[in-house]
């Protein structure tokens, strides 16, 4: 080793973690706002301004990254990646952060949370999310996941009006930290088996090892379990319904979109990136996780009358559909990424709408509460319907195209049985999503109350709906981007 090893921080590295820095600075800004002002209106106004600037800055710095020829670049002492994949997820998370700032405001105040406190904790969680898609070794992965989870443990129990918030926080925390411990022990075993935590080197060792070390195998299985927990896949899903239901809706929205996407970003990077050779060791397990997630998630959602719980169960099913993509080839990985994007946009929209329905302190809880919504509030019901149809996978929405890509890749790689199970369970999905649509459009007796939407909220919801439709009608352009992003993974 005679050649000098370059210093870890290279010029351009800071741009590459720009989005991360932007949200961390925004988080610091929120704290400063909390200290600097005493009047609530000023606090709120500045929180909003700083948050939007932070999100915009994150998006801009993400776009500034020079991706060169599309190959993946390792930065900061080979701890993180910088490539099209990170840019893709950066933009998604920046969008989510903006959407959360605009759409969750009412729900945050309704749950008697202080916006400045909510958003400073949320910003830390977003920092964790920005880190998940870039993690290039197991330590970064662990830290990213911890960073994104911990603020949510707190936020889950944050609402003082909720009777169930504390229980949700307790369950989320205990199960979450146990999952972290399992993940960490897996990392330890993996490190023990190979002497490395770098994805690239791990991948090289796994694919050239010739003889599989049991430590590596056990480590891999434990890491898979930890990741499956964060993604909310069966049989590590039990926290999802309870925590989604019990947490304040603004927090649930964050979990259903950000946490899910970040977990998937990490899982896809880990399983389809340089470590792809290891996937074959756990593919049978992944098959079962996918199959069970689709069955349990959809069957569970059928029974629910609580809307948040229904969306929670359905999110389990979607995790299954997305992970199905990983069983395929690179086309399948691209399908998984595409599905993630569509899912996140649709759920962000759906929760965005749900957060505005309600009367004073009370939110709309059950499906029946939405009876007659279309009669009184046709436009927002229309938007909600678009998001629900996308989640149900009905053309011409993005949800359909995403399902088509995933099932298509599964069939191409010979997982016909799994694809058929996916098809069968999708029909259950149509059944329960349509219950909400029926409640809104076909039952007239109820009179749900809608909080006032600011013009910005309309714009954001409209944009989300438009993008969901655009992804269904013109999938070509995003598909191209996703494909190149997936190519840069390997």
């Amino acid at each position, binding site marked *: 080793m005679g050649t000098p090893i370059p210093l870890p921080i290279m010029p351009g590295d800071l741009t590459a973690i720009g989005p991360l820095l932007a949200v961390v600075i925004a988080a610091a800004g929120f704290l400063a706002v909390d200290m600097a002002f005493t009047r609530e209106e000023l606090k709120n106004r500045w929180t909003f301004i700083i948050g939007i600037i932070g999100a915009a800055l994150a998006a801009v710095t993400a776009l500034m990254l020079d991706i060169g020829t599309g190959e993946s670049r390792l930065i900061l002492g080979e701890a993180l990646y910088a490539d099209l994949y990170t840019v893709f997820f950066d933009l998604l998370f920046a969008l989510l952060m903006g959407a959360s700032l605009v759409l969750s405001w009412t729900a945050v105040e309704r749950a008697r949370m202080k916006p400045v406190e909510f958003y400073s904790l949320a910003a830390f969680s977003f920092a964790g999310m920005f880190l998940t898609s870039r993690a290039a070794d197991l330590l970064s992965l*662990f830290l990213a996941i*911890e960073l994104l989870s911990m603020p949510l443990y707190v936020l889950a129990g944050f609402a003082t009006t909720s009777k169930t918030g*504390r229980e949700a926080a307790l369950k989320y925390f*205990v199960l979450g930290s146990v999952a972290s411990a399992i993940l960490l022990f897996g990392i330890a075993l993996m490190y*023990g088996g190979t002497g490395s935590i770098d994805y690239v080197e791990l991948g090289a060792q796994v694919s050239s090892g010739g003889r599989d070390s049991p430590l590596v195998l056990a480590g891999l299985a434990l890491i898979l379990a930890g990741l499956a927990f964060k993604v909310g896949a069966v049989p590590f899903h039990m926290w999802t319904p309870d925590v989604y239901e019990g947490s304040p809706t603004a927090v649930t929205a964050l979990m259903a979109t950000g946490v899910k996407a970040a977990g998937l970003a990490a899982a896809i990077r880990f399983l389809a990136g340089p470590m792809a050779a290891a996937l074959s060791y756990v593919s049978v397990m992944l098959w079962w996780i996918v199959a069970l997630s689709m069955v349990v998630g959809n069957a569970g959602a059928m029974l629910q009358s609580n809307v948040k719980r229904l969306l929670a169960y359905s999110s389990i099913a979607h995790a299954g559909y997305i992970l199905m993509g990983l069983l395929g080839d690179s086309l399948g990985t691209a399908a998984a990424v595409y599905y993630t994007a569509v899912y996140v946009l649709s759920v962000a929209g759906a929760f965005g709408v749900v957060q505005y329905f309600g009367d004073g302190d009370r939110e709309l809880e059950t499906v029946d509460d939405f009876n007659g919504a279309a009669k009184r509030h046709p436009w927002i019901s229309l938007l909600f319907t678009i998001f629900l149809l996308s989640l149900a996978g009905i053309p011409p929405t993005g949800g359909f195209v995403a399902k088509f890509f995933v099932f298509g890749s599964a069939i191409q790689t010979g997982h016909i049985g799994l694809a058929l199970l996916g098809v069968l369970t999708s029909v259950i999905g149509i059944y329960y999503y349509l219950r909400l649509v029926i409640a809104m459009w076909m039952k007239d007796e109820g009179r749900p109350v809608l909080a006032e939407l600011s013009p910005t909220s309309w714009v954001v919801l409209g944009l989300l709906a438009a993008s969901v439709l655009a992804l269904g009608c013109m999938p070509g352009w995003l598909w191209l981007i996703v494909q190149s992003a997936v190519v840069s993974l390997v």
Partner: protein
Amino acid sequence: MPAPLEYLAVSCILFGIGIAGVLTRRNLLVILMSIELMLNSANLAFLTFSRLHGQLHGQVIAIFVMTVAAAEAAIGLAIVVALFRQTGSVRIDEATRLRG
């Protein structure tokens, strides 16, 4: 000096005790301690492997993990206190309102 393998065995046993504690105890504080035990057993494994491989990576990871564990413990305790203030109990089998 014992071979590193013994340390590894201790680490595995600690992790097992942690799991057993989480599974069988009803007091939230004890469960918190058990989770800490699991994290620390992973630390021990890192250190052992670090020694076995003759590297420092493992030690560095251990330092990171300790900090994370501290943060997690802090949040866990905060949740315990919040729950205690609300229900007056720290037994986890009393929190079953969310189900189904």
